[in-house]
């Protein structure tokens, strides 16, 4: 019954048809919610869940846990015990045991924050030391660096929370900061459009070329 699976020509064709029909079903949501979309959504979530279990075993649990135990590192059994603690959330009486593992995880996340902070911010702080005078700088560089400093400070001023932006002296930088923010958000939006359109073009090309053979 499953002989056809050994023929990759057949499975490639089937793959393409599943993909094409699924693609159309997903796009149908753009018109309105409908049974085809609902079916595709459930199939997608089901397959992703099945894949998730398989990949968790093959990529994480098998190499990092099971292989460790069978190599003789027996203390990895305790990882299973710690993992089991999560499951106490379903018990009224012992729910507090699940908080032990939550608490530990939160502690680890919090403890890692210093490193995370230094890792990304220190470089960015030193990269912000932009000269506004000195040898070897041309007018364009000075103008760009001045602009950089003004925008950076204005944006940071906007995010001060503990005083009201009431007097003009306090309000002006924050207002400027908001304008800078909106300009930057516009730029980020415009920049992303091309990448998203590239994906959509790729998908429509799949339908027109690979599936329907209309496009060259």
């Amino acid at each position: 019954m499953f002989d056809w699976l050994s023929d990759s020509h057949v499975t490639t064709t089937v793959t393409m048809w599943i993909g094409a029909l699924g693609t159309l079903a997903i796009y149908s949501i753009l018109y309105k919610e409908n049974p085809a979309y609902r079916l595709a959504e459930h199939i997608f979530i089901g397959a992703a869940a099945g894949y998730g279990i398989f990949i968790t075993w093959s990529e994480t649990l098998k190499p990092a846990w099971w292989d460790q135990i069978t190599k003789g590192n027996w203390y990895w059994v305790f990882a299973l015990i710690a993992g089991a603690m999560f499951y106490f959330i379903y018990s009224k009486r012992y729910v507090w045991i699940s908080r032990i593992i939550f608490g530990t995880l939160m502690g680890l996340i919090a403890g890692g924050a210093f490193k995370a902070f230094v890792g990304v911010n220190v470089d960015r702080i030193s990269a912000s030391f932009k000269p506004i005078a000195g040898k070897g700088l041309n007018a364009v560089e000075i103008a760009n660096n001045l602009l950089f400093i003004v925008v950076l400070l204005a944006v940071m001023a906007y995010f001060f929370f503990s005083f009201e932006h009431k007097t003009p002296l306090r309000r002006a930088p924050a207002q400027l900061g908001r304008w800078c923010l909106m300009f930057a958000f516009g730029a980020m939006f415009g920049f992303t459009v091309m990448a998203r359109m590239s994906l959509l073009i790729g998908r429509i090309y799949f339908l027109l070329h690979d599936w329907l053979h209309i496009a060259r």
Partner: protein
Amino acid sequence: MFTRYLIKPGAPQWLWVLGVIGDFLLFGGILFAFLQAIPARFRRPFIVTLTFLAGLIYSVEFFWPADPKTQMNFLTPLRLKLGEATKVVYAFALGLGTYNLIRFHGSNLIRKRPGWHNNLAFFISFAAMMGVGFWAYYAPSSKAAANAYNMLFEGIVGALGATMFSTIGFYIVSAAYRAFRIRSGEATLMLLAAFIVMLGQVPVGAYLTSGIPSGGVLRNLRLENLSYWILSQPNMAAQRGIWFGIEIGALAMALRQWLSLERGSFFEREL
């Protein structure tokens, strides 16, 4: 116990399974009995202490001077082990999510609620994808397994994922159309930046200003150069400004978590 003393590497897999189950019950039982012995009023302090200690390992490891040759200090090996262990422990939690999925779709299916065939489809594709995954993994030489795996992975997970991702192309059009109106100064600024950058990214934009010479000061007015300047100068400065605030916010959050200062921000119920 069992996996430590009774079963040695090279033993058959089923023996290992039994050993792990045995150890799990034994050590889990001991730990459970120990936790039961903690009086209720000490539970919270116990968790607070654990949270603090867990955080302490990572922070001390970071602040403690490292050997300049190896970039390690006395806690670094522990940190690396803990990182591995956290990954494994986290992976065990997948069962909770899966249980939720099965409970939700299962109850709809059993009670034949409207649309139950969708829940059935969920189970079929769930079992099929998981099945071919393990089949392909444990029978790496089977061509049928590899084909079946590719068929389901590329046909469903790959294709539907790419399609869902690409719907953003549609949504970006309707969002831009609706939001980019010159209603206020702020909205106009946003519109202006988006316009320049958007056109600077595509051939037709470069064409619009291709009359401007590509050398000298004037070249900065070509759309692709203007767009690059906006992205790399004002946009970068603004992003950095937001970033510092966000990172300080995260640091403060971490401090509050670590020292359990945020009483009641997640759980209020008595333990």
